């Protein structure tokens, strides 16, 4: 395809965009454009589109440069944190899967040992005098808390043992 071009087209467009065309200072160039189809079309287009650009510039309400910089910094840091945590999460997941696999594989082999261990534990429990945790009926009904104190203490200790790891996790967690 043969495209008609003119060596002065670029000059015409530059003059329009610099505001020299409307000011009428580029007399020679304007005279040339009046007789050159390529430059005439370029001047027309550049005039129309630069006016549209000016309209768009006046509509633009962009963030301040400081805010743009700050936002970019925050986003970059968040992305870096996510990337840094990724290998740790992968390792954690892998370790969990391994632990579950090992446990699942070990249970059949350790079944006999577990049976004997549970038996030992049952024996230990049977030696504990559970009546020590029951409320003392001799204690006055006016002090129910005192009567139930041993049981409350035992339950409280058990709850602390169960909840403590969860509390520690949330305390040290970044989120």
């Amino acid at each position, binding site marked *: *395809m043969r*495209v*008609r*071009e003119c060596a002065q087209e*670029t000059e015409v*467009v*530059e003059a329009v*965009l610099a505001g020299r065309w409307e000011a009428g200072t580029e007399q020679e160039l304007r005279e040339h454009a009046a007789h050159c189809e390529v430059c005439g*079309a*370029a001047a*027309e*287009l*550049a005039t*129309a*589109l*630069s*006016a*549209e*650009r000016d309209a*768009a*510039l006046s*509509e*633009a309400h*962009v*963030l301040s*440069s*400081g805010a*743009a*910089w700050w*936002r*970019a*910094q925050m*986003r*970059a*840091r968040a992305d*870096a944190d996510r990337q840094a945590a990724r290998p740790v999460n992968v390792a954690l997941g892998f370790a969990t899967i391994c632990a579950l696999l090992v446990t699942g594989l070990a249970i059949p082999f350790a079944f006999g040992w577990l049976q004997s261990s549970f038996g030992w534990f049952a024996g230990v429990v049977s030696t504990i005098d559970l009546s020590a945790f029951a409320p003392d009926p001799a204690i006055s009904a006016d002090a129910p808390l005192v009567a139930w104190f041993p049981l409350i203490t035992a339950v409280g200790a058990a709850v602390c043992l169960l909840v403590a790891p969860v509390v520690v996790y949330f305390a040290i967690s970044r989120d």
Partner: protein
Amino acid sequence: MDARQMAITEAGALEQDATAGDTGTFLMDEECFRAFYDRTARAVWAYLSRLTGDSSLADDLLQEAYFRFLSAKVSFEGEAHRRNYLFRIATNLVHDARRKRRTQPESDSRTDFDAIDEGNRSGCHLAGRRENAVDIRAAMARLKPRERAMLWLAYAEGSSHEEIATVLGVKSASVKVMLHRAREKFRRIWGR
């Protein structure tokens, strides 16, 4: 273009800052970035808004463009290189946004260009204008995105063919022909 009016000493100082050692998260330091942003942000927004026809989309894409620009580990050869790179990122983001929109046909996010284009197709807007020239935005709406970008860069930003080729990711030799076609199509639609 503002870049062409910049003093050589100032451009040289910016170049040194841009290629200096790592300033933490980004290659470019804050002072350099803020100066560059102040010079270019509104022009990039204008480009994005006229390409997409959607001001709020242009706001989002502008933020994304500057973030990607800052994140790029590129050594710039000068202000013009920096600016072209930024416009290239902006162009790619517009392309991605269009592709995303095409895969979500039930989306509520219509652009001004969609409305103008529908009006033109239905003839409602043109009914009273058949004797008159179609206005610039309506004419731009009827161009392909690449044609729109090409005309904007050439006649609103004053970019050279090489710069247009860099921004749009096409061969420099193809720009002349593509620009000519876009120009003739626009003038036909515009009625001039």
